[in-house]
């Protein structure tokens, strides 16, 4: 009897045989194969037996159902097919085949699903290909492509050495210190009033140093992510954080 194996990357989340009874797939808990993810419709698709053939039907789902990378409405499935729903994959196999491991022979870099509580590494090549495929055809099309934005601090009030600063470093220090980019002037200016960090995803966070900065009038209690238009105040200066194309 054929079966469907639900996977997230290479981790196996569940298995269900395809017999006479149809297998419904979706986010609602009354489906035979439940995928609890916002990218999946409540009643997303079904796999059923028609005159000995295994058929897949998409119920007009928002983000679609993909077989081997192609968006489908109704299609015949065969062992070895890979069905993508959201970021999950459903692998079609014959129960004669022994699985439990990813069906690839990628040698050393191959990651097996290990015992519970063992840390698992994913084969990054396969992961990238998989994620790239999902990004190309799946839900990610609804997300605006990331543009490279230039982050700028525009000084609104206070004494600094310049009126505008482009934030391109990992760490930008506001203060009188030699390492400060936003140089404060004045006898009582703190050496390091605050810091702005550029994280790996090019988001920016402001954090306290010798002083606690505030964003739009509210003092921060922990490093806080900046949005374009935020007005930052610290050590007597006021500056606007702007993201530009």
């Amino acid at each position: 009897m054929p079966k469907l194996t639900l996977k997230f990357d290479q981790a196996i989340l569940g298995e269900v045989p395809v017999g006479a009874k149809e297998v419904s797939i979706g986010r609602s808990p009354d489906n035979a194969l439940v995928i609890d993810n916002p990218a999946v419709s409540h009643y997303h698709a079904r796999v059923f037996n028609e005159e000995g053939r295994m058929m897949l039907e998409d119920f007009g789902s928002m983000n679609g159902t993909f077989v081997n990378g192609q968006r489908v409405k109704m299609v015949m499935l065969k062992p070895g097919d890979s069905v993508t729903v959201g970021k999950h994959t459903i692998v079609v196999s014959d129960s004669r085949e022994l699985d439990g491991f990813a069906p690839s022979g990628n040698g050393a870099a191959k990651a097996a699903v290990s015992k519970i509580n063992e840390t698992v590494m994913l084969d990054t090549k396969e992961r990238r290909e998989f994620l790239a495929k999902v990004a190309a055809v799946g839900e990610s099309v609804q997300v605006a492509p990331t543009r490279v934005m230039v982050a700028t601090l525009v000084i609104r009030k206070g004494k600094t050495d310049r009126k505008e600063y482009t934030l391109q470093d990992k760490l930008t220090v506001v203060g009188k210190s030699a390492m400060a980019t936003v140089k404060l002037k004045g006898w009582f200016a703190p050496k390091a009033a605050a810091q702005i960090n550029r994280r790996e995803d090019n988001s920016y966070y402001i954090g306290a140093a010798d002083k606690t900065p505030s964003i739009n009038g509210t003092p921060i209690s922990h490093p806080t992510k900046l949005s374009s238009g935020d007005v930052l105040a610290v050590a007597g200066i006021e500056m606007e954080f702007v993201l530009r194309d």
Partner: protein
Amino acid sequence: MSSLTKQITAATIDFGARSDTGRARENNEDSFKVASELGLFILSDGMGGLDAGEVASKLTVETVCAHCRDAEADPNLPLEGDRAEGASDVSNRLASAIQVANRIVRSAAGAGADTNSAAPNPAPRGMGATVVALQFFDERVSIVHVGDSRGYRLRGTEFVQLTDDHSLVAQQVREGRMTEAEAEASPLKNVLMRALGVDSAVEVEVDEEIALDGDTYLLCSDGLTRELSDAQIAGLLGETQNAQAAADRLIDLANQAGGGDNITAVVIRVGGKPGGTLGRIGRWITGYGN
């Protein structure tokens, strides 16, 4: 001018570290290494069957340390991997050291061996490791990491996780697809998106922070953070004066809480009094800048 020469005087920086097998595992696959003359602290959590995890984490910390020491002796030592934009020389050197460690762990795992050979090739050992490393320079600290070993900072009463886990569930949380509680309960919480020893190059996350007098830094493996809450860790760091005593107490507490995995903690205290008011920066490093 940024120089790689930096020394931390023993009087102004206090550090302590301990690694423990825990109560459930037979081997300790965690490793740490301190090169105090470089202000460098490295922690790695290895994975793989038999002794592979131990070997991987040991190779990682030793390689990172050796590469940084070599660069100290020879500033023209080439960087391995791409330069991180907007990052200091120290951060780039550290990231380079992690690329070297990745290559070494990968070759130790048997990648690149003749897989077409008909002979019963010794199976790839599925060897890998996480790494988190921290290096003080000038008045700053560079933090680089791969995987789910973490760096934290206690500044006053503010306790901040400085590293984002490269795990599947952490990514889901960042994308708003999962709550912290769901991540904690997920059967997939052990799935890493990045690790050393997997691919020919590894994506190293690089961050830089100001180091202030009075800051306490913690590097730890997931064996600590799976057992103790942030509040427990922050409380303990805040009330324990001595860095070694703090590391010891963290390990003891994690063991009392179950000790389900190997536990490693490296605690670094910069000048000042723990939990005290913030002092001026830049008093605790001497000899930088040449």
